[in-house]
């Protein structure tokens, strides 16, 4: 029997669409195995929500092709067909990855960082405000985003932008207003990570998310919505534990300090 293949972790960014969201997590995850970060920041990744979902799915196809070739190709080695993929989606990226995972059996694990399935009034309001700021005073967008997406305990000072004021970011904010994934079914194990001080995603939305999946772990961090900006190392520790199969279903936590 062939030894189990190591999972490839595919990281999907949030509203910015930028791989920079995973600037810390990607190279650190690469310590343990293959990692790919999807770039959704350009039009090449699609200009509709469904197209961006398709872009991620194609990325998985490409990975499968590459690994198949690496394994020697048809006829040279028995292919068990399994190229396990763990998808990690942050914020908007959680919507994309949930949609992919629901339709693709190659996804053997799903991590949702600050995710939700469909917006409530509060989230729609927040998205509307961000869209309005982007439209009217784009220079202020990142500052407003910081106030909304980071917890009050986050360190102040210089940091890479959370939310660029470009057109595609605006589209992702708008798509998030209308996408509704409450009907989806994901068979793979899921890890939901949320920030206790998330001003965007309410506890109710998080509970709905946790309640939707059959095989789910749930972790709450002392952070706001932008978990990757505020607690990247803690997120990393949870993702690693999940990928390694060390998290049993139910409430989980990172190392206690």
């Amino acid at each position, binding site marked *: 029997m062939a030894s189990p293949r190591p999972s490839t972790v595919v990281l999907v960014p949030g509203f910015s669409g930028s791989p920079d969201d995973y*600037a*810390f997590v990607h*190279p*650190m995850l690469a*310590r*343990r195995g293959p990692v790919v970060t999807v770039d959704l920041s350009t039009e090449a990744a699609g200009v509709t929500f469904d197209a961006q979902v398709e872009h991620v799915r194609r990325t998985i196809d490409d990975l499968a092709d590459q690994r198949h070739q690496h394994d020697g190709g048809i006829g040279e080695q028995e292919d068990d067909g399994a190229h396990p993929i763990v998808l990690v989606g942050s914020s908007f990226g959680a919507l994309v990855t949930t949609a992919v995972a629901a339709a693709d059996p190659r996804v053997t694990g799903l991590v949702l960082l600050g995710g939700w399935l469909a917006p409530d009034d509060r989230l729609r309001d927040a998205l509307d405000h961000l869209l309005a700021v982007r439209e009217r005073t784009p220079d202020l967008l990142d500052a407003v985003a910081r106030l909304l997406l980071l917890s009050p*305990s986050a*360190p102040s000072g210089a940091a890479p932008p959370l939310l660029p004021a470009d057109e595609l970011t605006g589209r992702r904010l708008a798509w998030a207003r209308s996408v509704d994934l409450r009907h989806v079914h994901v068979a793979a194990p899921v890890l939901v990570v949320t920030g206790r001080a998330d001003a965007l995603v309410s506890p109710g939305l998080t509970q709905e998310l946790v309640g939707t999946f059959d095989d789910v772990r749930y972790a709450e961090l*002392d952070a706001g919505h932008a978990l990757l900006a505020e*607690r*990247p*190392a*803690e997120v*990393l*520790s949870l993702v*690693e*534990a999940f990928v*390694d199969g*060390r998290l049993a279903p139910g409430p989980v936590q*990172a*190392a*206690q*300090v």
Partner: protein
Amino acid sequence: MSTAGTVTQVETVVVGAGFAGLGTAIRLLRSGRTDFVVLERGDGVGGTWRDNHYPGVGCDVPSHLYSYSFRPRAEWSAVFAPGEEIREYLTEAVEDEGLAPYLRLGTEVLSMRWDADAQRWSVETTTGAYSCRTVVVCGGRLSEPRVPAAPGLGSFDGPVFHSARWDHSVETAGKRVGIVGSGASAVQILPQVARDAGSVVLFQRSAPYVVPRENRQYSPAERRGLSRVPGAVERLRSRMFWDMEQGLAARRAVPGFVDRLRATALGHLAQQVPDESLRAVLTPGYEIGCKRVLLSDDYYPAVASSTVTVVPAALREVHGSTVVAEDGSEHELDVLVLATGFESTRPPWAERVVGRDGRTLAEHWDAGMSAYASTSVHGFPNLFVINGPQASLGHNSAVFMIETQIEHVLGALEHVRSTGVLEVSRTAEEEYSAWLDEAGEGTVWRTGGCTSWYRDDRNGRLTLLWPDFAFTFRERFGTFDPAGYAGAGSVLG
């Protein structure tokens, strides 16, 4: 505990009463174990924080994190509290936890020898002998001062002392003071001494990277708030820990992270040292993180003051009051301070530990320290080393690592109670070392182009360092698993 003849019988001997030894004792006592003693050669507790009382001594990890998780303290005076406050914290722990009856101060271990027939350790000390089933060595890695082998040093005309043996009877005000070394201690000492010394000569073998310390006092309201709001100290500590964990990215030379850290340090230097030629002398010639990155806001201004002269060379020799540097320059001095670090990769106490085959631990480690789970050594049954090989960090709190090892050791001690003897296999120890060697590849500690206390100069290996996240050490070894002691890599991942 019982005394047979002149030999005191005890289940566990803990050696050392610093953070590791006291932490072990507290956790033993809290878990209901009273059959142990803590042997301490000094006349008080505190280890590093008892020995190092030089002017300006402090820790470069925030105090809320550089303290026991099981003894949180809301009253730290500052983000980086002074060393004296850390020592007081440990003294307080002894009082609060009722450790005094278990402490044997002024008791230096002369030898520890495994008695295979009795399956016990025989421990000879300056105050009597002990026989015990298990030994937990908490000797510390900053406990044995390293003194340069410069000819004539012993006959220097004035006072000469190591930074960890500071002689407070020596007046430095108005004097010509030499400081040898430019590491963590020197960076704290120099600004204090330079305040009123007549002149200071800094002998710098290699320049350190220094980043802003940005220390500040906690206000009384902040301290009271931390103590009154449930969970506030724990949340602060957790935030500090996970923030510091990000520092590993720079140590693993991840572009962007290492570049930002280097830019921060060089920007700090440029801002505080306007003179270009001095700045060149103070600019390190290796990658940041290769040596410990130091934190100070007053080091560069002091170095740039008219009182201080930087000699970019090590000490060569001493004639009377003339100190000669490796660059040939000669300096007339009244007082010489050796801020030259510690014997960390070759702990002298290892020469006093004799294992199952009659070999000393120093002999076992003659090609560099190693220990499975950074704790257990093949050939040395029922002996556990905390804060020894491959347990130090370059980016986070040593106390977190110590606590992880303590929990591992508590599990091991329980295991020994039922099995009698626990010895790690040679395979497990070697696999662990090989795995750590691999994990250390590509890090700035290996590739940064420096010599440092993290690396053993005998083999270039990172025999002191755990080259990964602190949380991974906790995940893998915070819970004792006897399976790992057999080898075959079951817990290495």
